[in-house]
């Protein structure tokens, strides 16, 4: 029976990891479109990498704001 608990824990952890990977993927997808406007170069300009960082963090801020707004409507 301890197999089942171990499996539960494992599946929960893998689920969390998958959620994180999906979130990173989604945000990279969106922020690439916002920030990398020209043809890809051999490295990012500092404005491009700053944009990516800002974009990711603002996306998270927005996500929290949306949840709060949604919850306040329940």
């Amino acid at each position: 029976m301890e197999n089942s608990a171990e499996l539960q824990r494992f599946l929960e952890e893998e689920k969390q990891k998958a959620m994180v990977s999906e979130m990173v993927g989604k945000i990279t997808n969106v922020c690439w479109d916002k920030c990398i406007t020209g043809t890809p170069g051999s490295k990012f300009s500092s404005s491009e990498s700053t944009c990516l960082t800002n974009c990711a963090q603002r996306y998270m801020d927005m996500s929290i704001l949306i949840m709060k707004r949604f919850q306040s409507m329940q």
Partner: protein
Amino acid sequence: MDPFSSPAPSNGSSGPSTEALMDQVKAQLAQAYAEEFLETVRSKCFSKCITKPGTGLSGSESSCISRCVERYIEATRIIGQALFNSPRKSSSRLHVTLGFDERLLLGLTDCSGCPLPTAIASR
């Protein structure tokens, strides 16, 4: 072996060992992630680099695609760092949004367990 069949039981029990099952799940998740990642890269780089499809890939189209793949992998790394390695403020935003166990979050900071593009880039 197809993804849905079980490995032969190794100890006379009636089902697959837990560890074999866990390995199978991890392998399938990693593969699914890799396929989705590659599809995203294909889509992004096609739209950036192939503006007028010709009868073959030109040299500039090929080098654009190479650079695009590298940049997209780098962008994924930057986003990961922006969300997990930056000041506590950002990490705690993440914690609130996803309800993460902090220990799991910290364990993911170096992403040793997760199938990130570092695995793809090293092929």
